[in-house]
Each structure stands twice: as C-alpha cells, then as structure tokens.
C-alpha cells in the first residue's frame, strides 16, 4: 500500500514533440494518499487512461517522476511496482478454472501452496464465487469475469495500488450496482489505494473519496464529490458533473449585485472587480419552478420548452432571459401555468473566464 506522488508528469506519444498540442498530458502534479479511493474523470481523449498507464508502469512518461511512498518508480515495470490493474474488458485465463485464475499471480510469485490455497479460498468467499470455484472461467458472465480480474489483484495482499480502467463498461445496469458496492466494501476491507478511470460521473462520484477531473491533458479540479458538485472550479467541471450539468449564464457582477439580462438579484457574497468573461453557474437542482405569486422579487419568467418525466424527477428545459436553463424538480411537483424560475442565491457560483471566483461573505 502506498502513497502515490506525480511530480510534473507530462507525456507525448510523439517521440519528438514540438508544441504543447503534441502532449497527451500537459503537466500534472498530484499527491494521492495511501489507502484513498480516487477517480480520474473526463471525456474520451482527456488523457485519463494515459495517466493511469503511467501510474501502473505500462507507459513511461516523457517528463516527470512517479513516486510510491517517495521512492522513484518512473522506470520500473508494473510487476516491480507491485500494482494490480482491472481493464475495461474482463481479462481472464480461459483455460483455467475460477480458482486457478485467482491463484495464478500467487503461483507466479512462488508463494507456498498451503498459503495460496488459504488465500484463494478466502477470496472466493469474498467475491461470492465459491460455488463456481472449479468451473472454467470462460463460461461466466461479464460481471463474474470482472470480479475474477479484480480478485487476481486482491489475493496479492501487499499490492501498492489497484488501478481500474473503466471496469464497468460491459456490465448490465443492475449488475453495475452490485459490483460497485462490492468494490466499495472491498476498499473498506482491504484499504488499498485505488485509482479508477471513467467517463461516467455517477461511477466516479460514488466510488471515489476524491475525484480528479481532467480535460485535454490537464487536471481541472481535484476534490471530493461534494466540492465538485457545490463549487466546480471551472465551468467545464460544472457542466461535466451533474445530470443535466450546471446552467451557465452570462452575467454582470459588481460587489454583491448580479445582473442577469434585465433581472437584478442580490448575491450572498461580495466579489471584487471582475474582468473578462463573467458568468454565473447554477445547478438544475437549485432552480425552483414556481408561480409568479410565490416567486417573489427574484423570480424570472421561465419559457419552458420541454418537460421530461424521468421517473423520480422531472427535467424542465427552457429559457430564462434568453439563456438555456434546465431545472430538476420532484416527481410530484406540478408546473404552474405561468412558470417562474427562482435561483437559490446560496448556490450561485461566479466564473471569470471560465474559472471559479471566490467571493467574500
């Protein structure tokens, strides 16, 4: 188990990079705590898998160092780094049984037979695969295969970290829930450092203690799920996290007063003089749809374009002051005939040139 430090990591797949655009990873500095659960979240092509492979040792970075417990690992192979990795498509050894699959990494390391037997038996119990121990791994379902891939890492009690590369991609929705909770409880039980790559915000947010949001080879924000939800550091983070993402609207701000189109509002915090492009962000969860009488002075006319009933919630899409605004309302809520939108002033974030500005209360 290890604390992982990324010291000024940059990587280019081009052996002779000429410009910054040639770099898949620009410049990454992070320190990840021993025993933490981290998620690397971002759209495809943001460099998250590249970064994962650099941490695991499948790739050597063009620049910078990877340290485990302050020991430089940059030039070491995955086996020397003693990590485990679970891939997008389950990797199993077809000709072996489930138990043999789990024993494989231990056999390779020359561990004593009785010890292997004990650990494999334990792991079969933990993964709820005991009844399938002697079956060929080939005929199992995708989620069972993925459990085996994970189990091959977990049986090596001393692994420094377990890395996941979009491990739930091929799993059916119902099984995803089960496998994710399993993962979560295994993390609590074994306390390994876990790093999880995904483009799926739900997976990232529910799995990780801290989420690393990446875009175009850069880290935009590292934070707990709550931080990412409440105070996205960049408008992209606001958009990428949440479903639908944060509403971003151009606005004029001076001190505590906010001007949105023709509407004036008071913010709870004061802001210093802002230059460049100023915007506010408000999550659909914090937009209330109400009638003119209940909206009060901060209500803005809401031109609703569509209402999607998605079961437990309704997604209301429309425009406020000519800008697209989505609102999330409860399944039982009714929409008044002349709807008004009210933004929760506590939850408004202010952005200057797409980056979050902190106000003073």
């Amino acid at each position, binding site marked *: 188990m290890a604390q992982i430090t990324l010291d000024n990591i940059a990587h280019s797949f081009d052996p002779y990079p000429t410009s910054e655009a040639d770099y898949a990873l620009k410049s990454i500095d992070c320190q990840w705590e021993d025993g933490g659960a981290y998620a690397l979240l971002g759209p495809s092509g943001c460099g998250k898998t590249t970064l994962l492979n650099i941490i695991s040792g499948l790739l050597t970075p063009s620049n910078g160092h990877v340290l485990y417990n302050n020991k430089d690992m940059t030039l070491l192979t995955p086996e020397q780094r003693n990590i485990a990795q679970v891939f997008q498509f389950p990797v199993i050894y077809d000709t072996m049984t489930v138990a043999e699959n789990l024993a494989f990494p231990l056999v390779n390391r020359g561990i004593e037979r009785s010890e292997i037997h004990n650990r494999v038996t334990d792991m079969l119990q933990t993964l709820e695969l005991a009844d399938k121990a002697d079956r060929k791994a080939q005929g199992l379902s995708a989620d069972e295969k993925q459990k085996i891939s994970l189990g091959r890492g977990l049986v090596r009690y001393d692994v420094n970290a377990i890395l996941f590369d979009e491990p739930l991609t091929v799993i059916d929705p119902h099984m995803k829930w089960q496998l994710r909770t399993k993962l979560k409880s295994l993390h609590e039980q074994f306390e390994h450092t876990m790093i999880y790559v995904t483009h799926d*915000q739900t997976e990232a947010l529910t799995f990780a203690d801290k989420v690393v949001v990446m875009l175009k080879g850069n880290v935009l924000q590292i934070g707990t799920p709550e931080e990412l939800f409440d105070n996205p550091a960049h408008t992209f983070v606001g958009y990428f996290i949440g479903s639908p993402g944060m509403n971003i609207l151009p606005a004029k701000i001076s001190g505590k007063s906010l001007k949105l189109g023709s509407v004036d509002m008071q913010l709870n915090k004061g802001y210093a003089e802002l230059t460049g492009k100023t915007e506010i962000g408000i999550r659909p969860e914090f937009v209330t749809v109400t009638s003119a009488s209940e909206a009060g002075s901060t209500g803005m006319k809401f031109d609703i374009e569509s209402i999607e009933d998605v079961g437990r919630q309704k997604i209301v899409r429309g425009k406020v002051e000519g800008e697209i605004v989505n609102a999330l309302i409860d399944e039982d809520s009714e929409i008044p005939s002349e709807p008004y939108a009210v933004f929760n002033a506590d939850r408004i974030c202010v952005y200057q040139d797409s980056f979050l500005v902190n106000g003073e209360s």
Partner: protein
Amino acid sequence: MLELAGVTKQVGAELHINDVSLKMERGSLNILLGSTLSGKTSLMRLVAGLDRPTSGNILIDGKSVVGVQVRRRNVAMVYQQFINYPGFTVYENIASPMRLAGVDEKTLDKRVREAAELLKLTDYLDRTPLYLSGGQQQRTAIARALVKEAELVLLDEPLANLDYKLREELRVELPRIFSETGAILVYATTEPYEALMLGGHTATLFEGQVTQFGRTIDVYKQPADLTTAKIFSDPPLNIAKVDKTEAGLIYGTQKLGEAMQGLPNDSYTVAIRPHHVSLSRNDRYSVRTIATVVSSEISGSETFIHVETEQDRWVLLTHGVHRVTTGDVIEMFLDPSRYYVFNSTGALVRSPVQISETA
C-alpha cells in the same frame, strides 16, 4: 404500422424470442428495454428481416414482410459499434444510401447537409472516420440512417459506446431528430434511465418475452408485474416478501404497515423504489424499519445507502449528503402509499397511483 403477431424465434433448443406480439405506429419511438441476452437484438434482427421467425408473422401496414429480403425493405440500422465506411469522408458516408438509391446530386447534397447540420457534423464533412471521435462517428452512422428516409429505423444500443455526457446530449436530441421523419423507430437499451429520458413507448423484455408494452412513463409507474418492475428500476428495486394478516404486513419481525383493505390474507411481495425510502420521519414516511448499513456512496448531490434488512439487500437514495458508517444500524421510514404490491404469481395488485386516488 409495424405489427408483430405471435413471433417466435428458436435457435437449436433455445428460444431466443418467445411469442412476441407488438404494434408500433408510424412516427413513434419504441424502446426495447432489457438486460443483455433478454432478446433485444434477436427481436431487432427479426424486425429488420435479417432473420426469419420460426413462427408468427411480421406485418408492415397490414402486409406480411416475412421472407422479403432486407435490401428490398426500407430499413435503416444503427449499431452499438460505430459502423462507417473507413475510406469514405463523412459526406460520402452520409450520402452512400442515397447514391445506392440513385438520388439526384442536388437533392443528395441538400439532404446530406441538412442531416449534418442536425447532427452537428458540418465541420467534419471532409474527414474520414479515422479522424473522428467516437461520438462523431456514431453521429455519422445516425445521419446515414436518417437520410435514408427509411420507414423503419432500428437503433441497437446506439449510445452504449459513447461517453456519459455525449450520451446525455444525444438522448435529448435523438427523439427530436427522428420524430420529424415519420419513421417507425425501434431503440434497444439496457438502461432504464435512458428509456425514461427518451420517452415514447417501452416494451420490457425478459428471457425473450415482452412482459409489458405501453407509454414509457406508464410502464415505469404502473408495471404490470414484478419482472417488469425489476427490469425498469435503476437503482434496483427494493423488495420485501410480506405476509398479510389482520395485524398488518408482516416482514420477518418487522411490520411494513397496516393491513391493506380489499386484499385477502396471503403472502405478497412489496416493492418500493429507492427514492421512496427516507431517513427521516414525516407525515408521509410513517412506517419505521431498521437495517444495517453495508456501504454508502455520496455523489455530491445525493447519497446512496446500501443496507441489509432482515432478509434482503436494499438501497436508499436520498437528497443531500448523509454520512453513515458500514455496520451502523439505521432507521428507515417508508411511505405505504408508495408501495407496489404483487401477489404470489407476481401480478401487480396495488400501485402507488391507485392508493393515492382512493385515499
């Protein structure tokens, strides 16, 4: 109108599709919802004419199309994998079905550009698929299906290989894009949430059988049986086997509510959706139960708490951030008016809507 009448497909000893009857209107969006191997793809292949049913009939506007070759039928299909001609530009990829149909150059150009505009591909018309992202490739495949002006458009998990955010955007756009074509749309997915986002009608599939077919939101809110309710729930449905006696609904050593009127004393299955379980009591959430925390997930805006009740594994979905520790025993509050009650054969005997109406 597309009509399936008692369609069955048997391969070897296996029944891939078992006696499916459905009617789909022109201009409608029809979702096939079910897990992997539930028969979605098999059903699509039958409808497309790629396979011939073992028995039963498939009719379009009252005329049987069984045995009519695929290329003689006006069908467009989009797959999970992005399938484009690798050597063609986006423009030529979109144009290809019209070239085959011999559409004149002017109309062709107009339709390609319209479709590209609709799917935000205008800037990429000169590129070959190799230089496109997954989302752009899939949009190209969709554009090709669109310009074909097929009477039947089949989409087999078209968004499954795309990024979450892209999926979210296309889910909103796709129904809008296709609703204008007047085609019969069939859309397969494994994700309940995707079905709800798309709207339209949904047929839930289980082991080759359609368990229910109706307006998507109706199937979600009024599942006819336990199987349908389970298929159409994400997070998974919370289920409790209860015995109804004079004393109430008995669940192990706990009570899940007073005896419901009008139901004979028997064993029932009570199902409740994860967001209808609360951590605090108020006038609606009146039934108290206890459970042990297995794990919890905090998504920033919501908390999922996985618990073990006496006999089952449940999940609670609550707004906001709630910190609980594994092993904690917590109180949960249920609203009996939110219960789905199924009898021993699995048929729905009480649903939340009925209760609120009678209350």
